């Protein structure tokens, strides 16, 4: 039976179960070690939650094809949406397992609704309340992921991508810099707005040659690269990472549980785009399997990069209504 994914600020049960579940995954150790994955330093076991951090980084550093260093196995190309849907499904099933609740559905953060607020109110929106994700800080000092140096069970970042792009071991609190000034960013560091989501949902094509950050289409706009008259990059998904800042900035961004709330909303926007015509564009995906082998990893029947499970394909990620639905689609 399909579970229902809901807005985290409107469903306190989903919110509390999400917090409880990610904390359980953070304390679950099934055997994989830092040494077994080539992460320098003294070998120690990696929690199930942190394996997702490693997986995301691994996909991001797997270039597709290996002869170039732009498009990777999860980003900067068509597979961005199906790969993250695969990741969310794996997290959701693991949360159901540790919560012993197969009715649990991931919550999402409707960041475009918060994007309608002033910058000051974006930084104090309900999602940053102490009973939700907690606020800004280095380390975060409020909410369920606040750092307490005297409490080994407080939320700690243990695996981190460094400035060279390699995984390293740390033991510190979570960092966020909500809406902080960012060099090179056009204008203030603010969240996307509803008009930006609408511009993406209105795009007719899913993606297009050259299947990269210079493509025109829904995927590149919602990922946040495309230059659009309404939406200046970094936009939508990318802009949310930049707005939150801190540990949401490197390839180890799943360290912040807000990562999944962002991507769940991106997935919700994709589901909105895939509604039947005339509201949407149908469950279509390109490139097809007949496209060049240089697009391996992004074609409809290619295998998605995995770490903690068996794999799947973009085709198998197009219709997941047997697994979950959303309480409401993006407006």
């Amino acid at each position, binding site marked *: 039976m399909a579970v229902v994914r809901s807005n985290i600020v409107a469903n306190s049960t989903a919110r509390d179960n999400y917090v409880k579940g990610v904390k359980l995954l953070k304390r679950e150790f099934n*055997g994989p070690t830092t040494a077994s994955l*080539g992460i320098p330093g003294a070998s120690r076991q990696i929690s199930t939650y942190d394996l997702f951090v490693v997986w995301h980084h691994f996909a991001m550093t797997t270039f597709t094809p290996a002869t170039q260093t732009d498009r990777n196995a999860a980003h900067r190309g068509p597979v961005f949406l199906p790969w993250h849907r695969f990741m969310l499904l794996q997290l959701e099933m693991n949360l159901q397992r540790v919560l012993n609740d197969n009715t649990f559905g991931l919550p999402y953060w409707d960041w475009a609704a918060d994007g309608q607020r002033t910058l000051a109110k974006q930084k104090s929106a309900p999602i940053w309340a102490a009973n939700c994700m907690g606020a800004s800080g280095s380390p975060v000092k409020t909410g369920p992921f606040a750092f307490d140096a005297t409490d080994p069970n407080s939320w700690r970042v243990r695996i981190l991508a460094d400035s060279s792009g390699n995984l390293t071991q740390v033991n510190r609190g979570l960092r966020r810099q909500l809406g902080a000034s960012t*060099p090179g*960013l056009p204008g203030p560091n603010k969240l996307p707005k509803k008009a930006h989501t609408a511009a993406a949902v209105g795009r007719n094509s899913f993606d297009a040659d050259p299947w*990269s950050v*210079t493509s025109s289409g829904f995927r590149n706009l919602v990922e946040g690269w495309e230059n659009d008259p309404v939406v200046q990059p970094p936009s939508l998904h990318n802009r949310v990472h930049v707005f939150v800042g801190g540990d949401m900035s490197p*390839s180890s961004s799943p360290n912040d549980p807000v990562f999944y709330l962002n991507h769940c909303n991106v997935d919700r926007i994709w589901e909105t785009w895939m509604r039947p015509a005339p509201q949407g564009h149908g469950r279509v995906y390109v490139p097809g399997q007949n496209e060049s082998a240089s697009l391996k990893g992004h074609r409809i029947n290619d295998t998605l990069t995995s770490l903690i499970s*068996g794999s799947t394909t973009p085709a198998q990620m197009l219709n997941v209504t047997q697994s979950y639905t959303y309480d409401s689609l993006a407006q």
Partner: protein
Amino acid sequence: MANKLARPTPKSIASYVKKHAPAVRKAQKHHHMSSTSVREADYNGHHIVVTTTYRIEVDGIALMGHMGVTNDGSVHYHPIPNMRFTSAIDLVKQVIDVFPDDFAGRKRGSGGRSMKMGGMSGAGKMVKRTARVK
């Protein structure tokens, strides 16, 4: 086609991680003293190849991640994957902000601020650019 994902167990997770570990270890070996990007385009029957090499230093120490250039001339740096920049200097400033621990305690080099840029020529020629930021 409907999805067919198996439900995870602690045992299945350990098993799959063991299977994929060699590929993860291989992906961990990203070190670049310099970053080279090759851009290609065809124009009026001519084939254009632009090769750009960046070598970036902060306080005399090289940034080891890969920096790339897209066809619109913007630059990106893999360790901060959600942004691109029109200025390499702004990019490096953001790297310093995102990874404060990697730069903590360093002293500014005695040479002061400098930026060296190599020659640039027209379409069909190689472009080499070296950025040194202190």
